[in-house]
């Protein structure tokens, strides 16, 4: 089995941003992503998730390195100043490179 390296961008941020981020992904023609509900703590305090206004989502998104990095940078610039936001990148090996 031949594996191919791609970059995974993980975004942890406020649930409210989901619609905006998905719009951004569509603009950039990203073809897929995965979202899970999360809570956590960071510089913006605790996000308990018990209450409407206050839950995180974690988005995982596999793409080519350049695409993922550019996306991370845009998100950082657009939302980093005022929203709870942490992003990280890592390498993953995928089976079907044409998918990402």
């Amino acid at each position, binding site marked *: 089995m031949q594996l191919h390296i791609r970059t995974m961008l993980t975004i942890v941020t*406020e649930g*409210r941003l989901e619609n905006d981020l998905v719009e951004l992904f569509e603009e950039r023609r990203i073809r897929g992503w995965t979202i899970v509900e999360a809570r956590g703590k960071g510089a913006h*305090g605790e996000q*308990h*998730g*018990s*209450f*409407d*206004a206050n*839950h995180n989502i974690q988005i995982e998104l596999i793409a080519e390195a350049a695409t993922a990095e550019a996306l991370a940078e845009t998100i950082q*610039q*657009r*939302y980093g*100043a*005022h*929203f709870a936001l942490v992003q990280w990148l890592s390498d993953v090996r995928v089976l079907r490179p044409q998918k990402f």
Partner: protein
Amino acid sequence: MQIDPVVLFFLLGLAAGWAKSDLKLPSALYDTLSVFLLLAIGIKGGLELAKQPFLAILPQALLVLLMGFLIPLLAYPLLRWRLPQVDAASIAAHYGSVSVVTYAVGVAYLTRQGVSFESQTTLFLVLLEMPALVVGVVLARLGARQAAGDVTPSAGHGWGKLLHEVLLGKSMVLLLGGLAIGALAGPDGIKPLDRLYIDLFKPVLTLFLLEMGLVVAGKLGILRREGFFLVGIGVGLPLMLSWVGIGFGVLMGLSPGGVTMLAVLAASASYIAAPAAMRMAVPQANPALSLGAALGITFPFNLLVGIPLYHQFATAVTGG
């Protein structure tokens, strides 16, 4: 002054949260209960609306809208005294808008006291939800524009998106939707649904208040940090605003009960619609501050002290 049993559930939640009990309600329950309460209140309002000609209450409705625009304009300069513009604007919006649960507890209080009030107050609740949010955003943006380069175009939604956010936010949709269903279906159509939307309204409110107690307990940290200032806002503003409500109520010629309910609406602060709208429209504002005041102080204050007090005010003023 005997405490309403529904308030005891709030105190239980508050105590449990404060003592760090592992009691936790699933967030799906919270969401479900708030959907239910909003729908039920809307339906009740719609049933009442169906009873009277809309034109007859139009003047009152316009006055209520005016009050909704006025309150944040009154609160803003006071808050500016110690807060940055964005935060002052955001808090003003929270207090100009309304808390549906505070309204519901107000209804429970008056019902228990045997005091009647005009049925259109539910309509007022719906009308008050939005205007203050618009004013709050305008105030914040005017401020932000002056504050130079700080605001990139991306900091906050545009007006179109914002209007969408507010008008199609969960609370507006359910309140207005309920209103429409109640008005269209009428008492006969709603009768088979009474067992849920009418009979279970108050009992379900107890579960919601239990959860709110836990949520408020979670806000004690910010209260401790922000100390006296937040308490000042959280108690001072509702006390002051209740008189705005009383003034408008008297102007409209409402009964003592009706004046009380308008005072409750004026004094209550939104913690569902406003945080959602402000977060997207004015992201520079600190949400911990506005939610801390509205939910951490004003909400319990109104439940425990405010509602009976506003009733006394209203009775004294109207001579009722």
